[in-house]
C-alpha cells in the first residue's frame, strides 16, 4: 500500500463537493512572477491550491484529427501552468480562483481557458509596477472586467493616485490595497471585484 497515494485520495474525498453542486464560476488572479497570486488563492481556498497546465501548439487551431503524431511533433507548443483553488459559495455555486501568469504566451490561451470568467484581479507588486502593464492591456483587449489590487509588501512608496497614474488606470477601475497572506483581506479583494461587476451591470442597464 502506497501511503502517499492513499493520503492524497483521502484528502480529495474530504474536499469533495456536495452532490447538489451544479454551477462552476471563475475568477482569475493575474500578476507577475512572485507577486503573491498563489498566496492570495491559498488564503481563501477551501482546498490546498492545485497546479495544472494547458498546452497549445502554435498552429493548434489548424490541426485536425488526422494530423496525428507527426503533426504534433512538427509544431512548437506553448505550455502554461496555473494554480487554482476553490470556494464553495452555497449548495449550487462553486467559485474557482485561478492564479495565472501575466506573461505574453499565457494570453494565447486566455479564450480557451477563461472565456466566461466573472472577472479578473490584477495583483500588483508596488515595487515592480511595470510587470502589470501588459496584463492590464490584455484584459482591456479581451473586454474582461477587472480591478487592481496592490499587494502591500510593507510601506509602499507610492500613493494610490501615483499608482493609478503609473498604471494609466481608467478612473472607473477600482484600486484596492490588500495583504494576500490574510484571508480577510483576500476575501475583501474578491468582494470588491464582484461589487465592481454589479456597478458595471447597473451602468449597462441604464445605458440601454
Amino acid at each position, binding site marked *: 500500500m502506497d501511503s502517499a497515494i492513499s493520503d492524497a485520495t483521502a484528502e480529495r474525498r474530504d474536499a469533495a463537493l456536495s452532490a447538489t*453542486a451544479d454551477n462552476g464560476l471563475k475568477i482569475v488572479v493575474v500578476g507577475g512572477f512572485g507577486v503573491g497570486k498563489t498566496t492570495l488563492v491559498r488564503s481563501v481556498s477551501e482546498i490546498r491550491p492545485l497546479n495544472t497546465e494547458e498546452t497549445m501548439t502554435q498552429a493548434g487551431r489548424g490541426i485536425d484529427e488526422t494530423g496525428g503524431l507527426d503533426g504534433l511533433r512538427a509544431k512548437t507548443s506553448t505550455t502554461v501552468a496555473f494554480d487554482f483553488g476553490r470556494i464553495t459559495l452555497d449548495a449550487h455555486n462553486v467559485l474557482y480562483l485561478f492564479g495565472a501568469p501575466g506573461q505574453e504566451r499565457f494570453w494565447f490561451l486566455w479564450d480557451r481557458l477563461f472565456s466566461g470568467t466573472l472577472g479578473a484581479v490584477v495583483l500588483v507588486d508596488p515595487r515592480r509596477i511595470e510587470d502589470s502593464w501588459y496584463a492590464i492591456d490584455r484584459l482591456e483587449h479581451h473586454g474582461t472586467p477587472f480591478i487592481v489590487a496592490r499587494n502591500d509588501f510593507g510601506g509602499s512608496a507610492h500613493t494610490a493616485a501615483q499608482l493609478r497614474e503609473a498604471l494609466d488606470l481608467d478612473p472607473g477601475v477600482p484600486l484596492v490595497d490588500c495583504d494576500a497572506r490574510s484571508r480577510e483581506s483576500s476575501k475583501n479583494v474578491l468582494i470588491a471585484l464582484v461589487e465592481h461587476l454589479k456597478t458595471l451591470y447597473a451602468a449597462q442597464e441604464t445605458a440601454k
Partner: protein
Amino acid sequence: MSRPGRDDSPDRLYTLTQGRSRSAPDAPFDLVTLVVAESGPTPGMQSELAAILRMCELPTAVVEIAAELRLPVSITRILLSDLLDAGRISARHPRAAAGHSLPDPDILEQVLVGLRNL
C-alpha cells in the same frame, strides 16, 4: 512539484487519446464544468478513464480532474468527451454567460453572499 504533462513524452499523450490532439470544436467542457460519473469503472477500462469515473462519484470540475491526472486540460477534455459520448458521465455546465457579456445580477448577488459568509 512536478508539472503534469511536462515530463510526459508526446507518445504517452498520443496513446491516451488515440492520436487526437484536441477534442471536437464544439467540445462543451469548460474548465469549471462539473462532471458526475453515471457508472463505475469496468474491468479492462483505460486506467485514466477509470480514474475519472472514481474521482467523479461526486461533482468534480474539469480542472480538478486534469490536476489529479496530471494531464494537460486539453487532453483531459478529450477523455471526458469519450466518456460523455459513452453515457458514462454527465456534465453540469456553468450557467454564467459565455463570452464578454456581464453575468446575471442574480448570480453576482449569490457570489457576494457566499463570499461574505466565508
